[in-house]
């Protein structure tokens, strides 16, 4: 029986993913910031069939608290087999343009706290020679755009970091999985008008579980984002900078 550590467990995509794992009677350890919502999620997953559900409240920006949390998760799960890192905030781009402090805080939450988690996790898992680490990055990290480049650059850092980590861990039996969701209908994006490109969170969650099972290095979810982002990355800067989206 495999045990999965889920960071940012009350986020919509993480929760949907956890429900799929619970239905498979897996063991889960959940970490999130809001105690009431975390408890509701943990109870729900236990009812849905998870073998055991542990949880703890943590603000991931408190980097010093990471190591003791990992220790407890390892103990509860009987060895972390899989990790899903899903915490994050959708930065208010306009507000960031007026505030360096906010910009740095967003980068801290969405990039640095992830990096801080990845290093000790990679060391733990590689020393055992097994496991999988999946991180929710974003299509927004593939190229910076005027409408959300603070969020996008944080995700770009995560994507690049994972790419390097994947090479490093290649011979240590640890899969490193970069998840790049496109537009997903979640509370984080409640303010957006939804169109054809928007995906349901359950669809993204199914893609994450599939990526875990197949140990796929990089997945775009839904898959149609791969060709779209290929084109967007390939656009010459002279053309790209004139676009607005």
């Amino acid at each position, binding site marked *: 029986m495999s045990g999965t550590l889920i960071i940012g467990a009350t986020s919509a995509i993480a929760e949907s993913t956890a429900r799929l794992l619970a239905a498979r009677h897996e063991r889960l350890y959940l970490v999130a910031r809001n105690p009431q919502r975390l408890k*509701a999620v943990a109870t729900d997953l236990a*009812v849905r*069939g998870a073998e055991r559900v542990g949880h703890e409240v943590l603000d991931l920006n408190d980097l010093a608290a990471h190591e003791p949390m990992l220790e407890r998760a390892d103990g509860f799960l009987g060895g972390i087999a899989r990790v899903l890192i899903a915490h994050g905030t959708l930065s208010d781009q306009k507000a960031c343009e007026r505030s360096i402090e906010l910009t740095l805080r967003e980068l801290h939450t969405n990039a640095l706290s992830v990096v801080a988690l990845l290093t000790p996790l990679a060391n733990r898992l590689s020393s055992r020679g097994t496991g999988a680490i999946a991180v929710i990055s974003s299509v927004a990290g593939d190229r910076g755009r005027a409408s959300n480049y603070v969020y996008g650059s944080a995700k770009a850092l995560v994507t690049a970091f994972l790419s390097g980590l994947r090479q490093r861990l290649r011979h240590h039996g640890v899969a490193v999985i970069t998840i790049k969701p496109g537009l997903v209908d979640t509370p984080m994006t409640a303010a957006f008008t939804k169109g054809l490109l928007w995906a349901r969170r359950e669809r993204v969650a199914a893609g994450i579980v599939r990526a875990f099972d197949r140990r796929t290095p990089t997945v775009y979810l839904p898959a149609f984002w791969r060709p779209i982002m290929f084109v967007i990355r390939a656009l010459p800067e002279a053309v790209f900078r004139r676009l607005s989206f």
Partner: protein
Amino acid sequence: MISRTFSSWGSVVRARHAVYSLASRHDAFPRISPGSTVLPYGNGRSYGDSCLNPDGALLRTDALDHFIRFDSDTGVICCEAGVLLADILRLTVPRGWFLPVVPGTAHVTVGGAIANDVHGKNHHRVGSFGNHVRRFELLRSSAERWICSPDEHPEWFAATVGGLGLTGVITWAELQLRPVAGAWMQVETVRFANLDEFCRLCENADSVSEYTVAWIDCLSRGRRLGRGLLQQANHSTHSAPDVPAHDYRIGMPFVPPLSVVNRATLQLFNTLYYHRPRWRTRRHTHFQQFLFPLDRIAHWNRLYGPRGFYQYQCVVPGERAADATASLLQAIARSRQGSFLAVLKRFGAATSPGLLSFPQQGLTLALDFPNSGESLERLFGELDALVAQADGRLYPAKDGRMPGWLFRRGYPQWQEFARYIDPACSSSFWRRVTQEA
């Protein structure tokens, strides 16, 4: 403030609403701008305008989708109000428990099922959904939270069951499930030549079968008036292995420019369906197929085209039920309107717990009608008069047009109910049926 266009299942009304959401069952009731109103909104499967509040706001509960407790020894389940009935069945059927009452779709929320006190094909045995609700939490705009049950705050329980979301928002509920051996049902279909034969068949069918429902050929007239097919079913006692629950197999990807349901297609379908071969059959069927046949076709409501459709569901009580139903069917057949979906069912004697609960002992007839404008309004006027004459009433969950007098006559407790309405809550339906002269 976010604002979005919402429509109900019948798609006749499309209107912009301000949108509030509950992110968790512990959230406070949102602050509504003064002078405005809000209406809890689950999965939007009410047909008419009872789930809409144009010019006002909706309070979405779709994030309240967590299970809280499930005891597989006693069959008691506690979950948040935004959980869909389909989610409950997916969880509990493999463990031997089934919802005691389900409507014709599993894509309704628990909160919606309570607020409309929905009924199913087994009403003659078990009553309505509200009869199996052990308790729930009601959150009022005053920030008060009350646990309501038949014993605790019973007056609020009675007002909120069937209360159309007007008494506040239900945050969670506890339901008593019933045991089953598995996912399969034993279904028998019997053809009947007219309404009299239906009534005779029902006598027996209702005593041997937990679920009974009839499809009616709404175009047949004269000696064939009310001919159709009676389906009766029981949960199978064999625990055959479940197959994975179907999500939508097919779907209607777009709204056709005209209703696909029209006189020509209707005549053809009804005749073929009535005369379909092997009409007296016993089948072993998955519950999804028998209880939720239309759930396999995503967005089937789009078949009715951009103008949408109305459903007319009435119940006529007592002795005169058969005669009144015959008059209704005559009027419908004469008008040559109607749709593939015409359903007749006998309600049993169970007392529904809600002040505004729809079911009462008698016959209930439900038909979809493509929204054809004036000619349909004339037919509805005729049907309304017949229903009123027979002391019947219409089902608010399905209604988008009943005149206020018919509602007030059919639900004499409406004024008593009105005392329990949350001052922050209102709906298009409620204003329509209470404010006009």
